[in-house]
């Protein structure tokens, strides 16, 4: 293989890859404004350092992709505005949000929960009830 072939093949591959990406990241429905605000809150407080979304992030806390299918929005907002002590600490609290921020955040989490993720997070299979 020669220089020219290599350069050409690489450029074509990059173009094809970029195109495939852009057609693949379509949202299921337009993102509501509250959810957009909520994404900014998620980023501002660096939630991803401890939690995952779509399974990407830190491993200290649980995955948040479909948290609103397990808890009500009110529960989550209450947790975030009156944060408890984080186990196994005795004093260290979970970071706190303002009430407005907590509402935006739950809108974002609701939107994320509606994105089809091909089965993430997995349904527990081996659970012996």
């Amino acid at each position, binding site marked *: 293989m020669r220089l020219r072939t290599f*350069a050409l093949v690489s450029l074509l591959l990059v173009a094809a890859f970029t195109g495939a990406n852009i057609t693949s990241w379509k949202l299921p429905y337009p993102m509501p404004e509250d959810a957009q605000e909520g994404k900014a809150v998620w980023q501002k407080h660096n939630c991803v350092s401890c939690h995952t979304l779509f399974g990407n992030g830190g491993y200290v806390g649980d*995955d948040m992709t479909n948290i609103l299918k397990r808890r009500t929005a009110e529960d989550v907002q209450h947790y975030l505005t009156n944060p408890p002590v984080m186990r196994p600490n005795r004093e260290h609290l979970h970071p706190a949000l303002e009430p407005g921020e907590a509402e935006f955040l739950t809108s974002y989490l609701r939107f994320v929960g509606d994105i089809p993720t091909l089965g993430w997070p997995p349904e527990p299979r081996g659970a012996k009830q």
Partner: protein
Amino acid sequence: MIFERSVLGYLFRKLAGRKQAQENQDTGAYQGANSKELNASHGTDSKQTNTNQRTGAPGQVFKAQIIARNYTLAAALLFGTQGIVALLGAIDLIIPDLPSPIPFEYGRSIHLGLAVLWPLIGTMGMVYYFVTEDLDREIFSPRLAKWQFWLVLAASLSIYASLTFRLGRGREYLEGLPLSYAGISLALGLFSYNLMRTLIKHKQRITPAAMIMTAGSVLLLMFLIPNILSVTNPIADEATKFWVVHAWEEMAFELTTSGFLASYLKNTGLAAKKDIEKWLYLEAALTVAAGLFGTGHHYYWIGFPAYWLLVGFLFSFLQLIPVALLVLMVYKGLKKRPQLGNRQKLTLALILSSMLYHVTGASLLGFIITVPWINLYMHGTYITSGHAHLALFGSLGFLVLGGSYYILSRGTQPDRKTYRRGIMAVLALNVGLLTMSTALIIAGFLQAYRARYLGMNFMEVNLQLNLYLSARAAGGAIFTSGDLLLTWQILKAWRKSKNAVS
């Protein structure tokens, strides 16, 4: 030439100094004042580094190779810092209520930011060094290379500074503010420009190694630019993040890695030119194809259509082929068991450590966790962290340290004590890394099995991981001791060789 005519080209030429833009009559080589001494101490290396065909003077040093010392020194120092920050973070995870000036979440951000950037800075130095070495010609503009160093350093340090004040972007790996990434992109732009102009200027001499290192640099730039600003679409946000986390690491840096190894083996006389260059473009094209579409293994669960399960899996499998070719190349290079000086031995200890993790922790473990049914359960557990450390440090980090040591020790040999300490440091890094990642993989397996498969409460499961996280911190302590010891030896090599090369 397109560049000649463009306005941008004009501005760059201004910046780079007119003299450089004119066709240079000579090779552009810079003859070090003490080159005799340099050559004398080179004697124990298996072969003299490049020989100037025109003057017959061996062991000349290009300006770009002296500037490369700034980059590699900065990389080594940042690596030293990372070990300390990381160890504190690991301890924070096992001791409740540990008082610390920086909370865990920002410490982690600094750690991740450092993890991507010191290998980048080191790579820039290595590319400058080995491209000039391979072409046996000076870089297009040494002045640009010098300025570009301060730019990339300032932009990188601004990320750590802002994160220390808890100012970040909350995006994993791309933790800093947009301005910082604009600075890094600009630096990568200048870097790519400088390299391309060098290749254009010496068209007849272009070697496959120089070409694929340049291609790798351009790809680094192309995939960073979309990450300067964050997007609101959360699916696109995840995907573009992996253009850096994956396309950088598993495609662009793979290209620069193959380039260095080829150039290193060839120019130290370890392997024959024809053995090295025969497969290089093919290997590189495979790296680009497999590396690019292999990004699919990060797209399984982020809202992308289902065909990415197949694309990600198949192309990740293809990723193993260029790695095998690379291993074959290094094996051929070392088969002759040449007589080596201590400088080469220490360099090779680092390079071979890198090859070990390139094959095991990066490629084999990486491939296992790429299988979608496995990934569904292990995704987002400490197994990912185990693989990330084995691959990012084990494969890329060791290589950049090897290159940095090689560049910074040019013209000298380590004394016996330094050599012994260097080897001890490499051992400690290996033992520390293996301990850390084994502990992480066990912890991750427990998370995957108990929380994801059995459906136990995630936090309950995490509270039972203390044993493994402590073992990880212990491994981290061994690692950090090796990290500091090696950084110190590299610093010593840098000081000792200062007179030899400038």
